[in-house]
């Protein structure tokens, strides 16, 4: 007997090292997980990123304040408009500028629309990761309709650059509200279809309940925000905690989970889509005609008619075009509740036409740091399923 034990001990097993990514179909973006496998179980792992680094922050230091807006599209390309809003809100705070009410309401509408799109993509692709492909199409059909709205709104689908410092690029188009209502109806139908396929599906429940849980304390320690934090039971939502753009006047609930596992993260996103739809309905009801751009001379171009007739307006126009917006010396940190969590911009201005420093705090950066911890001791298939519902967007992570 003892001899046999010794013999098995003598059989030295070599661990298998597996590279998941950076080019792997389900590594959402270009992430890399280097793991040591024992059979199918991940013993140790190292998560690596940076394959999509494009130097957003350095770019921003060499552009005018307005030129940074298109770069922000490329941060979280799934919900580009929320980045536009986040950046512009930070610059406006630096300028101590209040944007018109209509612009605020439209920003709320597009933000919530993008939150819905982001959650659709996240849950849809996550379900593909665990093998349920059909739900993906139910979601992407709706997403397509939302993208049609975005296309009509600003001429682009992905790289929107919809906001301007002090307001918006363009007003809503006629017929926007009807189209949006039809879309929201489709969304409700799609959510119903998908939950109908999944709610009582034993395979789905087995694959998600209790998979990749993270405790409240761990989540807070890692700096989780957004749906991933709320899934653990912490009801932190910047729209409620530090309301901006009149979010305090909307009637919506902060959805919280219980265990912080994959199932909770998916269900929280399902519910948040419904809440976002509610906010959009309310915002469209209170939408009043008015300007969509502030008339503050520091940021807004004067009307063309005045430029041609009035010397002051001409000078103003000239200065704005040649020197750009010049916020006062100072620094600001402004955060919005983006689809993945707290999207913060820390901006330092030295009073010139270009930012001195733009630091972006992407919500998925802290979340990705917890990923190796969450997958260790799990199976390979779980690692993929967990990554999907953490919703790591490489563009935002690497900047």
């Amino acid at each position, binding site marked *: 007997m003892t001899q046999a034990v010794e013999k098995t001990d003598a059989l030295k097993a070599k661990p*298998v090292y*597996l590279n998941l990514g950076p080019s*792997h*179909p*389900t590594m959402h973006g270009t992430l890399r997980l280097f793991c040591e496998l024992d059979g*199918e179980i991940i013993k140790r792992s190292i998560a690596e990123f940076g394959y999509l680094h494009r130097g957003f922050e350095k770019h921003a230091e060499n552009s005018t304040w307005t030129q940074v807006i298109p770069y922000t599209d490329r941060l979280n390309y799934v919900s580009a408009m929320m980045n536009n809003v986040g950046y512009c809100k930070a610059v406006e705070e630096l300028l101590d500028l209040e944007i018109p009410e209509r612009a605020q309401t439209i920003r709320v509408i597009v933000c919530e629309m993008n939150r819905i799109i982001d959650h659709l993509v996240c849950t849809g692709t996550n*379900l*593909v*990761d*665990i*093998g*349920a*492909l*059909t739900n*993906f*199409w*139910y979601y992407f*059909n709706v997403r397509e309709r939302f993208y049609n709205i975005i296309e009509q709104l600003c001429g682009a689908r992905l790289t929107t650059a919809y906001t301007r410092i002090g307001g918006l690029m363009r007003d809503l188009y006629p017929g926007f509200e009807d189209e949006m209502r039809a879309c929201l109806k489709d969304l409700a139908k799609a959510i119903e279809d998908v939950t109908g*396929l999944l709610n009582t*599906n034993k*395979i*789905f429940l*087995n*694959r998600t309940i209790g998979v990749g849980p993270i405790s409240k304390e761990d989540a807070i320690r890692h700096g989780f925000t957004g749906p991933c934090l709320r899934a653990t039971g912490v009801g932190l939502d910047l729209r409620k905690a530090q309301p901006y753009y009149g979010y305090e006047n909307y009637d919506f609930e902060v959805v919280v989970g219980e265990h912080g596992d994959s199932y909770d993260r998916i269900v929280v996103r399902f519910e948040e889509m419904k809440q976002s739809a509610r906010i959009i309905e309310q915002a469209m009801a209170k939408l009043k005609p008015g300007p969509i751009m502030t008339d503050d001379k520091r940021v807004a171009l004067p009307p063309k008619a005045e430029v041609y007739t009035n010397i002051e307006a001409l000078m103003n126009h000239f200065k704005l075009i040649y020197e750009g917006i010049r916020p006062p010396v100072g620094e600001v940190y402004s955060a919005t509740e983006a689809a993945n969590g707290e999207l913060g911009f820390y901006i330092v201005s030295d009073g010139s036409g270009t930012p001195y420093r733009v630091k972006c705090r992407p919500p998925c950066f802290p979340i990705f740091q917890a990923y190796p911890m969450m997958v260790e001791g799990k*199976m*390979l*298939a*779980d*690692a*993929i*399923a967990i990554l999907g519902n953490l919703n790591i967007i490489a563009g935002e992570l690497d900047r």
Partner: protein
Amino acid sequence: MLIIVLKIIIPFLVIMQLLPLLIWLERKGAAYIQDRRGPNRAAILGVRLGGVVHSLADVVKLIFKEDIFPTNANKFIYTIAPFIAMAVACVTFAVIPWASPLEWKGSAFSLQAVDLNVGILYIFAIGSMGVYGIMLAGWGSNNKYSLLGGLRASAQMISYELTLSLSVVGVLIFAGSLELNTIVQNQGSNLLSWNVIRQPLGCLLFVVSAFAETNRLPFDLPEAEAELVAGYHVEYSSLKFALFFMAEYANMIVASALIATLFFGGWQVPFVSTETLRTYAQPIAYYSVLGLGLFSVAAGWFLVRRKHKVVYHDARDYETKVLGFPALLVGLALIAGQILYGPLPLGETGSQVAAAAFQFGAFLAKILFFCWVFIWVRWTLPRFRYDQLMKLGWRVMLPLALLNVVVTAGIYLWF
């Protein structure tokens, strides 16, 4: 001699003809389940046949792809693996009966390639060879993902083979024979005496294990595209990949044929026994040809009359005409022939052949139905995790299969 060659070639050809159809069914079925349109572009002279032509385009594409050998791959194993996978799938079909045996000059002439008296054992024996194809592909590719896929496949297929074989034991007890033809005849044409009614649990277990054996979702772990990219065939390209692809569908056909044969009456036409079919072969043939003619005329007329909403300004505009006119003419010819010459006297052999043709049609319909079930399930359910799959196999399915055997044997003994 000629008959033996024909018997070998015909089942093989039937599988080969069903393959593109199934691939089309999978694509189109998936598309309609998922709110899409599916393949509708590839065309020959404007004829798209609702996307069937796309399979041809795929074949051409796969043939012209570069055949890649990965560095340090074991060339022999790497090459032989897809052949094993495909050959096993085709060979299994040899013992499946297509119709009731013909009685010719006093001796029975079975309509299957080989009438083995250990038919079902042969199928299990050959079927378990299928795992070699996948395992060797996983091993020979020199790729960690392939290796994981191969490991998963071997563990999964060996585990589920136990349930697969045990779930059939009940059927064998009822039939008292391992011969597939006897099993089918034992079930009779009455729907209520089919094994699915007599052995509901056995049927369920068999169907689930068949899903696992064919590596289809929810059991497609060996090729789980999410975590293993494409699993055991990740390194394969060109026709070698096509062989794996075809083997998957061929396995599906075999599994469907087995489900139909063992539990759903095989070639039996529901409620119509072989004797009835043979007695009334003449009127049945007459009216079905007439019906076929009418259907063909109606379909042709519908196609010819149909106006396109979109005008493509190319050959596709004539698609409905190209398909519609021949259908119309064939239909008219059939009807005219039937009316002019009336019911033809079929004779002894003729009525047997006609009955066999009907049974073959019924069997094919059953196979296609179960293939559709395979497709349907694939696009509805998520995938198991490896440990959950094993748990289901060993802790749930195997005890249930054993229980089924014990209960069936008990009932058979005492009643």
